[in-house]
């Protein structure tokens, strides 16, 4: 589902620790605003996949295994055979489950290529030549002159500020 890529912060399972490079950068920086922007950009690539994760790799069972993982670390020897098979199953599901493009990209390790070879990461157009950007009011869409001091989102007027404060301010900073 959408949390797959948008909030890796909340994922605690050991199996899914692989996160996209962009997200690694976001996690490293303590700046919540950058994180919010990155998360939003990630969300732009989402589909509404419904509950597909649930019926794809048996989420109930997988989440049970996540709980088990901690216990497993402590008492390695005392594992019952039933638990083993369950974990094996979960591992297999994880292997079979399609990986996201960013995971594949991370795996391909394009940075190790010599610099003259064009690759996916080098084909990106790169930062714009002028750093100026226009700001649009997040509430109504018109040119925004003001910035919310709490969360950094933009608004254009007192009216929009009130709407912003009431609805989505501090959404990302928690």
């Amino acid at each position: 589902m959408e949390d797959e890529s948008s909030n890796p912060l909340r994922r605690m399972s050991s199996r899914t620790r692989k996160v996209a490079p962009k997200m690694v950068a976001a996690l490293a920086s303590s700046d919540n605003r950058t994180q919010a922007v990155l998360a939003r950009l990630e969300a732009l690539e989402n589909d509404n996949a419904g509950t597909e994760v649930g019926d794809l790799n048996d989420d109930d069972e997988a989440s049970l295994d996540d709980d088990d993982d901690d216990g497993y670390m402590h008492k390695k020897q005392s594992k019952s055979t039933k638990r083993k098979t369950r974990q094996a199953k979960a591992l297999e599901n994880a292997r079979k489950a399609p990986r996201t493009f960013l995971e594949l990209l991370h795996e391909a390790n394009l940075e190790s290529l010599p610099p003259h070879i064009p690759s996916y990461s080098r084909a990106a157009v790169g930062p714009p030549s002028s750093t100026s950007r226009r700001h649009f009011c997040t509430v109504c869409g018109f040119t925004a002159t003001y910035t919310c001091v709490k969360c950094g989102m933009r608004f254009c007027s007192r009216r929009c500020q009130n709407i912003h404060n009431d609805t989505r301010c501090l959404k990302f900073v928690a």
Partner: protein
Amino acid sequence: MTGVVVLDNGGGLIKAGHGGDLDPTAVLPNCLLRPLSSKKFLHPDPLGSHSTAALDLTSAAVRRPIDRGYLINADLQRDIWAHLFTSHLRVSTPSSCLLLTEPPFTLPSIQRATDELVFEDFNFKSLYVADSASLVHLYEASTSPQGLVSKAQCSLVVDCGFSFTHAAPVFQNFTLNYGVKRIDLGGKALTNYLKELVSYRSINVMDESFLMDDVKEKLCFVSLDVDSDLQLARKPGQDNVFRCSYVLPDGVTFTKGYVKDPEAAQRYLNWTDESHSTSGGTIIDVEKPESAEDRKRIDLTKNEFDLTNERFLVPEMIFRPADLGMNQAGLAECIVRAINSCHPHFHPVLYESIILTGGSTLFPRFAERLERELRPLVPDYYQVKITTQQDPILGVWRGGSLLASSPDFEAMCVTKAEYEELGSARCRRRFLR
């Protein structure tokens, strides 16, 4: 003589047909859908079909085999292709060749998965992998044999599709891969952006991808002057030429949403034309009094939402991704960078043969705006000429169809025997990518 299946496997739409045909046999969304009424994922109907049992796509869940333009879920793609080959194309795969498009810089792991899919699951006799830019170039060169594209044998193809936007220089039917530049923005991101805006401002439509795709296609346009258009969009009532309502489906009489007043939706076109011709300043009364009363009346039985500045702020993102917080240059700068990475001898010709393709270039005035943005960035001793395709969604497929019907096509393919002998990586070198 064996048939060639030409497959433009896009992130949004699959375009599939037989080599040599003018148009693809089937154009269908590259996804599986699960409408609310169903428990299983179903195959979508091809575009343009008017079957009576059309799926109600309200809040349908979508699974796509393609993420960010690249094939990541081979199992899902196998399902979709199997359905496509048996019920739409009706071909037997072991006795046909396949011409498949692939985006530039596909990762080796993805190429391997694709080859396995083609040769091991579908047993195709042979495979040719093409990139979309060279196919578009081929098609454009063939449509105007006297044009610059075919004479100079080079062009700059701007493919603004569903998953991303590429500017790719092509020379003698080969894409110069060191010149390809990419913006990570395409139709999908734009739809999601529109979804986000509408959901925050009026009605929650976060689950309605198909509905919002339709809204985007029908109502969005590219603004030529964002600042003045923003001012115009502020006006209340009838003075506001951009305001437009979209009626949501109610599930009973309408299973598809529609634009409430299509005539009013087009008003912005006349507005700017007239205001340009009258050298600005004068206010033109665009009000149409006859049915104004009808329009004002809000039908409470229908759910609808208004769009004003969203109509042009959404496609605007392709030109200025920085406004979204993306650290990427806009389309015009992307083109300039792609051209600058080629040899200087190419520059004048490339600027004069820019070809626009891909579904996201269908926004009204896209080419006009691009030219306005591009002109100041290009030295004045170069001409800038932007060619639009007649049907940008099918441009790549038509080029593929041409290539498939060329006499030496079969020699360019990799056969199944070669694949079994040499493996995926070695075979791929044949395609010079």
